[in-house]
């Protein structure tokens, strides 16, 4: 069964491109959100297998959102993967403190990268 993915990003063009790519590569993008509030709502509604969250959501912080998603149980244990055009090295400390399952640079986004993080996280 294909992994069910919720993508949280404030850029429409990226959401479209990511949805097409990931679905072509065998994942199921069950929803997208462009704000933190929408992400919290959709996470509760859709119960995705994995959430992709952009580090910079306009004026919101994707890292803060990740913390909330994990802490208040909205994602019900599903892994949250941070994505960004920023360098992972620059945000390493914040990523580690967010309790996200991993980080994927947007330019290297792929179903394989997501599966690797999800599988690596499984017991």
């Amino acid at each position: 069964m294909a992994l069910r993915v919720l993508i949280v990003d404030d850029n429409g063009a990226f959401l479209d491109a990511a949805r097409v790519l990931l679905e072509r590569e065998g994942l199921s993008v069950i929803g997208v959100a462009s704000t933190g509030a929408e992400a919290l709502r959709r996470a509760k509604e859709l119960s995705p297998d994995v959430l992709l969250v952009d580090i910079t959501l306009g004026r919101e912080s994707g890292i803060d959102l990740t913390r909330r998603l994990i802490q208040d149980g909205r994602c019900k244990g599903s892994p949250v993967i941070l994505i960004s055009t920023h360098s992972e090295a620059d945000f390493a400390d914040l990523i580690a403190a967010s309790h996200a399952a991993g980080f994927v640079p947007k330019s290297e986004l792929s179903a394989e990268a997501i599966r690797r993080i999800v599988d690596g996280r499984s017991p």
Partner: protein
Amino acid sequence: MLVRLTVLISYRQTMSALRRPVGVSLGKRSAGGPRRVLRLPRRNRAAARVLAVVGPIVVALSLLPFRSSLGLAGVLFCTLLAVVAVALIGGVGAALTAVVVGFLAGALLFAHPYGSLHPDSPVDVVALIAFVVVGGVIGILVDDLTRLGEEQAALRRVATLVARTAPAGEVFAAVTEEAGQLLPVDRTSLSRYESDGTVTVVASWSRDGGHIPVGSRTTLGGKNLSTLVSETSRPARMESYADTSGALGTVSRERGLRSGVGTPVIVAGRLWGVLIAASTSERRLASNLEARLADFTDIAATAVANAENRADLAASRARIVATADDTRRRIERDLHDGTQQRLVSLALALRAAQSMLPPELGELDVELSRVAEGLTSVLDELRETARGIHPAILAEGGLGPALKTLARRSPVPVVLDVRVDARLPEPIEVAAYYIVSETLTNTAKHAHASIVHVGVEGIDGVIHVSVRDDGAGGADSARGSGLIGLRDRVEALGGAIEVESPLGAGTSVHVELPSAPR
């Protein structure tokens, strides 16, 4: 450390009062330090009177053996020297006393049977009259010259403070003190008019220690000097405070003031404040008090204008730095939200399209992979460019995480000690970040250091940023656009930067920033 020796010349309380040595300053102070003046004890009035009486007699007696050769005119001429000395010490009143005593001494010494003075001799009469007239004129001239010298010295002392850009409060205190010491008054105060119809005392001085507290604020209105000056922007005089009214009038009467003069402080054509000189005694105020006080208000106005210009300049520098930072932040954000996102989207779309290629189009697949790699490479370069323009981690994570990133990227090992947990105002975070970033860059390029210690901590509302390496030293903070740019940035925020770089002993940069920028 600047060592300064100031001798304050004696001043005169009234036309008939004695010269009083105000004091000697042996203040050892730095350029920005407070004015420290050690006052000598004042002479008592009787001393000058005694000198005015004894001086001419002593002169006349000492010339007694030469009476026949000098003659009456010679003795009187020598007595004029005593008159000059008395005028210097005691003013015109004492000088006139000396003239009278000298006249009598000369007349007695040369009267029959001791001398040849004869009331019928026109020469002797002319000599005595000339002595009295010349002595009186000399007394008045010496008195005026001395007073002028004292005024100029007092004004020069205050002007020197203004010239070396002493804090406005120090200049204001000097204005009230020097004016009070110089003029025949008991209290002086300098007050600033506020926009809400009140007036605030910014400096005050009192001969008896009962001065008005600095910072006290009172509502204008009624009949009193501050209100009169505020209404007319012209000097005002009140020979009697008996009929003053309003809050200021009440305060003045309660403080025992009986008369006073106020002159406006005009800064760049607008009324800024008022300098008041008041008396607690019944004596009539000097007629030229307004003019003499106005010299001090001119200097006070210059000090205010300078302070305002400096504040405007600092604000302007702060705005320039803030505008530059805003622009850099906006460019970085535009790159991130626009160009980078579009390129990423194109790269993903390309890979999506690539995934649909039939196996027989292998060459096209290779070609598209090459394009995708090129896009990724462009994205990497763009990310580095964006980071150089403005570090996104600073806005996202604050100073601590941003400095950790700098430390990780530094080719020279960094020991980082950040003791500031809470987020700081953005201009402070940006300044601290660039201080560390620029210094680490310089260290990597020039210092040949093996380690760098970076520390950030907040103490009593001041953020201390220090970067210290064990390299070659010899850095010149006056050269190199990086350090100059940092100095501009730090000073625009009201902070201070200190660079120590002795040859062979490493380089240390210490910066202090106010946690709440101006």
